[in-house]
């Protein structure tokens, strides 16, 4: 039976939730505010948010100086491409672990997750040399592969969690009806797991979009995505806070909007299996 919540308690919960939400959102809000200020006003302490002039100058400069759409299209290709490729590889892997587990399945899952704990810089040189040998340095295909591989453990884990919620009897029934393994995965398992796959895709698009180590280190002029676009406005010797903020807003806006519209799926995806 659900516990009764008093109006007072509800009010406190609401206020606390709003306070936490605002606290988390504050850095983004601050970046948005600074992006509409002049460089002089952006560094003034304390900043006069409402009284200082609002301007679009920084956006104009960023537009003039950088090819935003080239970086944007690279980000889209890398994020979507690596995620889709990851899902194609992860669905069969998650299927086998969820429905045909072996004694080592748990160990393999833990090992896959442990690769995420390796500091990326530790393998920078080997991967860089591999990219040179394969001739894929500063190419989108090379980065799609790397981003897919670094996010693969998360994709497999998420899909594995969803697949475990699907009764194995349904798949057995499909087999009894003569479905091949491919048909079982394609026409029975995948349609039932669409919500789970959708939230996995959304989360991994966000992760790939925000990835900044490999996308900075393996690109130069051709395949650089929006992370490199932001990095080009940071400087320890010279004040570019307003321009850096404008570039950051332009880089995060698409993913922020996507996250806003898909928040239900994202929350569902992140909490799936947590409560039975």
């Amino acid at each position, binding site marked *: 039976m659900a516990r009764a919540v008093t109006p007072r308690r509800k009010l406190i919960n609401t206020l606390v939730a709003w306070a936490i939400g605002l606290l988390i959102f504050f850095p983004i809000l601050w970046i948005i505010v600074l992006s509409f200020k002049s460089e002089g006003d952006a560094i003034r302490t304390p900043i006069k948010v409402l009284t200082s002039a609002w301007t679009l100058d920084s956006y104009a400069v960023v537009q003039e100086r950088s090819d935003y759409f080239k970086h944007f299209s690279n980000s889209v290709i890398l994020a979507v491409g690596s995620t889709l490729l990851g899902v194609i590889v992860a669905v069969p892997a998650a299927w086998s672990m969820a429905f045909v587990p072996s004694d080592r399945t748990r160990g393999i899952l833990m090992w896959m997750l442990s690769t995420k704990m390796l500091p990326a810089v530790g393998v920078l040189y080997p991967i860089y040399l591999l990219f040179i040998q394969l001739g894929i340095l500063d190419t989108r295909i090379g980065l799609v592969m790397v981003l897919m591989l670094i996010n693969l453990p998360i994709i497999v884990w998420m899909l594995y969690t969803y697949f475990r919620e699907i009764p194995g009897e349904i798949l057995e029934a499909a087999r009894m009806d003569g479905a091949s393994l491919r048909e079982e995965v394609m026409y029975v398992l995948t349609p039932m797991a669409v919500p789970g796959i959708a939230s996995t895709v959304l989360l991994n698009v966000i992760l790939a979009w925000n990835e900044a180590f490999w996308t900075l280190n393996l690109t*130069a002029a051709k395949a650089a995505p929006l992370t490199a676009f932001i990095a080009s406005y940071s*400087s320890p010797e010279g004040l570019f806070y307003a321009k850096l903020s404008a570039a950051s807003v332009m880089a995060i806006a698409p993913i922020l909007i996507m996250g806003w519209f898909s928040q239900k799926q994202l929350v569902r995806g992140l909490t799936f299996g947590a409560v039975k």
Partner: protein
Amino acid sequence: MLLRNALRAATAMSLIAAGAAQAENLVIATVNNGDMIRMQGLTEDFTEKTGHTVEWVTLEENVLRQRVTTDITTKGGAFDIMTIGMYETPIWGANGWLVALDDLSADYNVDDILPAMRGGLSHDGTLYAAPFYGESSMIMYRTDLMEKAGLEMPDAPTWEFIREAAAAMTDRDADINGICLRGKAGWGEGGAFITAMSNSFGARWFDMDWNAQFDTQPWKDTLEFFVGMMNESGPAGYATNGFNENLSLFQQGKCGMWIDATVAASFVTNPDDSTVADSVGFALAPDNGLGKRSNWLWAWALGIPAGSQKVDAAKEFIEWATSTGYIELVAENEGWANVPPGARTSLYENENYKDIPFAKMTLESILTADPNNSTVEESPYVGVQFAAIPEFAGIATEVSQEFSAVYAGQQTVDEALEKAQALTNDAMEAAGYR
């Protein structure tokens, strides 16, 4: 007739083809600062003159350093030209990682490059990167506050004078700090400042056998003086202040003096951004009467990675970007105050540039810094605010973290120096110097 037309067409086609074969697309890695961004805006001039096109990869200084180091050590070939500093150039040149710039055209006039810059960007007398702009460090001070304090800034002050002046200019109620200096950890941030300052106190990083020297009195004097002065007259939280934080404070009128890069002079005198633009004076970085001042020397320079497939086109670009012609191009488009400073002698002989208020002091600061003889006692390394050895960046970052902990009040000067001594000796031993 038909044959003649065919021949003409063939000739035209071959000329176009030859032109197309020569025209290259250069990928240039560079650092994000005002001078470099200005250069990107003027690249069209280079393309018009040579036919070569340019793609820029602009990165924050530390990211750039990591990026180009990875590429050059693996012979990645991602960049045709790299923007590198005075620290990397002699090391990379010695390793054979850079193309020697020993055959630049006569028009380029390589002898016009300031000797200090040329020396710092060479190895065994061979130039490996051409300076795009150079900088030293100097004192920028508020003339109105100095006058109010009843003091007059000498052209070449001592540290004692600076400390007294800082105390006299400090007005905590009015939120004015007598002096703002870098305390932020990082070999290129607070580490650069304290190393340059230590030179004037008679300190050095290593003796001639590569033993660390943090257990010597000059280092103790340097740190104690710095901490004492900053506690008396510096801004709160100076342990985390770097160039940008101090620039912001100075521009808002919250610093009486600021000792930092000479390129900052154009920022603090720019009325669009600085509230104190019309009351800024300049002086040489202080000394202690030991024959060495506390100014550093740095240059952002353009170098070509060895093994590049586009060496000729890259050299053409470097000649264009670091020439007197480029300086005139910037002056024509953006004014003389915005030309890249500190690289060429002829700039300081130019009548138009002599009117710029900070030009004279910038040149004098650059000329008084000698990377080959930066310390009072003899030292085995090249460099003023760094030692040009590959291990220095890692060691100096750790040492500067220890020093920043002192500035933040987390440990004593003695504790920091003891740790610095131990970690430096350990690293040098591991690297085979000792």
